[in-house]
């Protein structure tokens, strides 16, 4: 970037909403777990035949759809590509030992970037937004695995 504004995710990231799950007060008179809960847990150990499977990840298709969507302007697409490339560089540096952070710390800029893309698409191209949202964990699965990442 030549004198421009850095595209660092951390600099632009809005604050994440705080989660006060642990802070929620528990009643002292809370009843002990009912037997029904235990039976439900036992049921959950049975094979998950009815569970819907995640759709197979098709990165090429998602990339093509992102390039062709009219929901995002050309400059915005290039700016997003810049930010994606920056994130991929961070992963390369991380796996190369140049970046002294944890994988968990790379998850935040990844999530932020996905959210940016989703917010840009959700109104004008909801189908693509859904496809990207559904692929979110699968893409992270590739990024967070050095062997899979090397194949990108």
């Amino acid at each position, binding site marked *: *970037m*030549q*004198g*421009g*504004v850095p*595209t660092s995710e951390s*600099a*632009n990231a809005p604050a994440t909403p705080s989660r006060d799950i642990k802070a929620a007060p528990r009643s002292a008179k809370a009843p002990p777990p009912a037997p029904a809960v235990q039976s439900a847990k036992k049921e959950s150990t049975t094979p998950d035949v009815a569970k819907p499977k995640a759709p197979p990840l098709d990165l090429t298709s998602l990339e093509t759809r992102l390039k062709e969507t009219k929901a*995002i*302007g*050309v*400059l*915005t697409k*290039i*700016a*997003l590509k*810049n*930010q994606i490339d920056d994130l991929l560089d961070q992963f390369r540096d991380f796996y190369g030992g140049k970046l002294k952070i944890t994988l968990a710390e790379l998850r935040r800029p990844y999530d932020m970037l996905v959210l*940016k893309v989703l917010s*840009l698409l959700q109104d004008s191209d909801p189908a693509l937004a859904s496809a990207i949202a559904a692929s979110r964990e699968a893409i992270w699965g590739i990024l967070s695995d050095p062997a899979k990442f090397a194949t990108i």
Partner: protein
Amino acid sequence: MATRVTDIVLAVLTVTCFATPALAADDASIKKDLFTVITLQGLPCGEVVTFTSKGDYDHIASCRDGNRYHVFLNAQERVVVEKQ
């Protein structure tokens, strides 16, 4: 003769009526694109109200909040937003 002039005037008006919204829509999409790029960089804008094009990917955007930005694609194919 009068009929012919009327026909020409009508044709011009028709073209103007259809072409102007198309141009305005294009203008609006560029403004939206510029606004999105500016905000993607985390910079304040509010809304791009006007812009001047210096090239295909080279614009000066004026925001409602008074900020002005030079938005362009540099030689490394990176979108750069410079506050003016």
